[in-house]
């Protein structure tokens, strides 16, 4: 039977379904689970902040804030909360997106009432195997000002978000869940908001709302955050990068550590002297392949890009590293594996190697090319 302390929150805009869930899950758990329900993300957020919820089950397709958007927000704010997606129409693409965004399970809503028993069984198993306590190696983005702003807007609050990074600072005014004004130095309005939201390593502080001297923004907060992310990526591209060579050497070394299966050295690596076996999936008829590095990403455990080379989707890759570190923790739960050293993937076209260390995470993608 499930443990007594399990507190579960269901979020779905279908209030009839919420009533049914309350009844059936309560029955299946013999009243051992404390069940909460919310019709939208705003209500869910306040329950999450007030109650010690362990398990959250979210409908994927909700109006205003979708289940996927909500997941992404919660991943940073409540990283240890178990999150499950329920959907009426499952797809492989959505499943990948939801798992990457922090969902532990992606489940299809049953067509018949009896089907909820298997949903309950999956949730109970998840609760049973949830590792508790902080993992030693995790890529986990800290709660940033974007998250704070998002939370304030979602909850429909009014406040002033003060943002500062070194000598730069400014304020973003939120009124009834809408961003109405921003100011930093000489800048005002949207430009000021982009500037503040794109600051690297910024800190933020929430203050009670005071009316601004003007209302300069009427763009939605979602659009503001999207544009600020794009602006930040652009700024990063303009900044001078660290020299490529040390990072490429690190990447080559990482690939070289797994050479026993590839039969050829990475760029800058000496050929191994071992008797080599071709990789699984790389047939023995292709022994003369060598890995050519195509992408490198190095980030801090807080998810800040330290270095990138040909990494067009840095944000997405960081999500992936966050996901991998979460899965490593779960795989190791209950098994005598020790800490994670490396994850390697292999496909028909190439491979990736990821190392998640206490100080930084390194991701390298290489393609198999014919040895000249």
């Amino acid at each position, binding site marked *: 039977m499930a443990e007594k302390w399990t507190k579960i929150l269901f979020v779905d805009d279908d209030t009839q379904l919420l009533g049914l869930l309350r009844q059936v899950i309560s029955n299946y758990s013999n009243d051992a689970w404390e069940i909460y329900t919310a019709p939208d993300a705003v209500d869910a957020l306040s329950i999450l902040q007030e109650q010690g919820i362990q398990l959250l089950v979210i409908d994927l397709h909700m109006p205003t804030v979708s289940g996927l958007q909500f997941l992404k927000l919660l991943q940073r704010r409540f990283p240890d909360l178990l999150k499950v997606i329920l959907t009426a129409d499952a797809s492989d693409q959505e*499943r990948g997106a939801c798992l990457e965004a922090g969902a532990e399970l992606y489940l299809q809503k049953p067509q018949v009432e009896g089907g909820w028993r298997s949903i309950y069984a999956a949730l109970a198993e998840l609760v049973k*195997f949830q590792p508790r306590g902080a993992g030693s190696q995790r890529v986990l983005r800290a709660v940033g000002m974007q998250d704070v702003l998002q939370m304030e807007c979602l909850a429909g609050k009014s406040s002033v978000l003060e943002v500062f990074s070194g000598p730069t600072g400014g304020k973003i005014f939120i009124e009834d869940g809408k961003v109405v004004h921003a100011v930093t130095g000489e800048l005002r309005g949207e430009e000021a908001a982009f500037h503040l939201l794109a600051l690297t390593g910024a800190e933020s502080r929430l203050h009670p709302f005071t009316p601004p001297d003007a209302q300069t923004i009427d763009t939605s907060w979602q659009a503001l955050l999207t544009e600020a992310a794009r602006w930040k990526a652009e700024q990063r591209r303009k900044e001078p990068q660290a020299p490529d060579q040390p990072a490429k050497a690190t990447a080559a070394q990482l690939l070289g550590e797994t050479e026993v299966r590839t039969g050829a050295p990475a760029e800058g690596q000496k050929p191994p002297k071992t*008797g080599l076996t071709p990789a*699984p999936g790389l047939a023995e008829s292709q022994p003369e392949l060598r890995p050519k590095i195509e992408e490198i990403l190095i980030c801090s455990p807080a998810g800040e890009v330290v270095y990138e080379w040909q990494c067009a989707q840095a944000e997405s890759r960081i999500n992936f590293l966050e*996901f991998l570190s979460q899965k490593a923790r779960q795989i190791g739960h209950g*098994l005598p*594996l*020790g800490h*994670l050293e490396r994850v390697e993937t292999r496909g028909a076209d190439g491979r*990736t190697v990821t190392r998640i260390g206490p100080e930084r995470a390194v991701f390298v993608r290489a393609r198999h090319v014919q040895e000249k």
Partner: protein
Amino acid sequence: MNATTNQWLDKSLRLPGVLAAATYRSDSAVTVQSLSPDFEPPAIEHAVKCAADVFAVLRFQQLPAEWLRWEFEKASFYCVCRNDQRGLGLFISKDPRQVNAAEIERFLTEFSHSGGEK
């Protein structure tokens, strides 16, 4: 699970250095066999399901993979996902005296290429 799946499990347990093995199907059914008391079936089943999630996210990331290897401090965890979405997971000792890496690779390749079997 059918006989062929069990045969894969039996074969994998004969490989040197294998601590535990599991197969899974696209409907999330998992079959586990363990040679080590430290590797209990429920934890292995959970690990294999986690690995199946990773293959789904790799596809979403446009990094399709048929093979995964997790190098932990004390053991390696190999996973192969075939085209028919059946998978095999092996926990392998890190003691080089016990393990024949080339043999494990060959076995995984054989499993990977056996897609379509029941």
